[in-house]
């Protein structure tokens, strides 16, 4: 595939309660094989998708949150999290699980994939994309 496009997957819903978060992650993982320029955005209740210590035993639904930590292996290394959405929900970066990738351009140094950005920056990130898929 010669042409490389910028794909942004926008995650706006809580991880459980609806299937959107899980099925978004499935697209991201399959899409990774197409070697496009992939970013993920987490805003609104979507920021809960990345919280650490998720335990779904009580609801009988699979806890898929560990999968986010595997994204680096799929060369998905840009996870933008909106600051205002965290603030509005009383969350900070410390409430999110660590997601890292190994930077092949920097001697495989381990770097954080999660980047907290402002709402205004998020708008710029969205405007910069070729394809936006919202879940």
């Amino acid at each position: 595939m010669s042409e490389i496009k910028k794909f942004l997957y926008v995650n706006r819903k809580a991880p459980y309660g609806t299937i959107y978060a899980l099925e978004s992650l499935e697209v991201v993982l399959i899409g990774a094989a197409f070697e496009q320029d992939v970013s993920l955005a987490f805003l609104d209740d979507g920021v809960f998708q990345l919280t650490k210590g998720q335990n779904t035993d009580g609801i009988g639904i699979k806890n898929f949150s560990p999968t986010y930590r595997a994204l680096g292996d799929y060369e998905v290394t840009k996870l933008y999290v909106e600051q205002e959405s965290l603030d509005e929900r009383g969350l900070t970066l410390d409430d999110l699980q660590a997601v890292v990738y190994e930077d092949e351009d920097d001697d495989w140094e381990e770097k954080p994939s999660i980047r907290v950005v402002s709402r205004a920056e998020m708008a710029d990130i969205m405007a910069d994309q070729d394809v936006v898929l919202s879940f």
Partner: protein
Amino acid sequence: MKFGVVISEGPYTHQAADTAYHFVKSAIAKGHEVPRVFFYHDGVNVASRLSVPPQDERNIQQNWTALAKDHGVDLVVCIAAAQRRGMLDDNEAKRQGKDASNIAEGFRISGLGQLIEMGIQTDRLVTFGD
């Protein structure tokens, strides 16, 4: 212009599949191309040929089947989403040992790669859903 279309909500509960249908019909009438429509999440339920809405209501599945027939639009149903929701074509029913299939004419079951490919190959990707 070349449009790709994603439908991510189910028929009748949500207007997404109706609005997308009118969008695709209008776009083609205006001379645009819509090579493919991708059904994801509950949108896969649009493809059921077993849906029997009341006579005086629009039939969403039949609308799409007619559009595929008249304009060659490729209607792709996501296999992962479809399997969860009991949407099977003949092959898949056989493979999974099920006694029935329900995918309507004009639709085909395929993978999420078709969605990504559509994003790469079209000028604009338009999503109908929440």
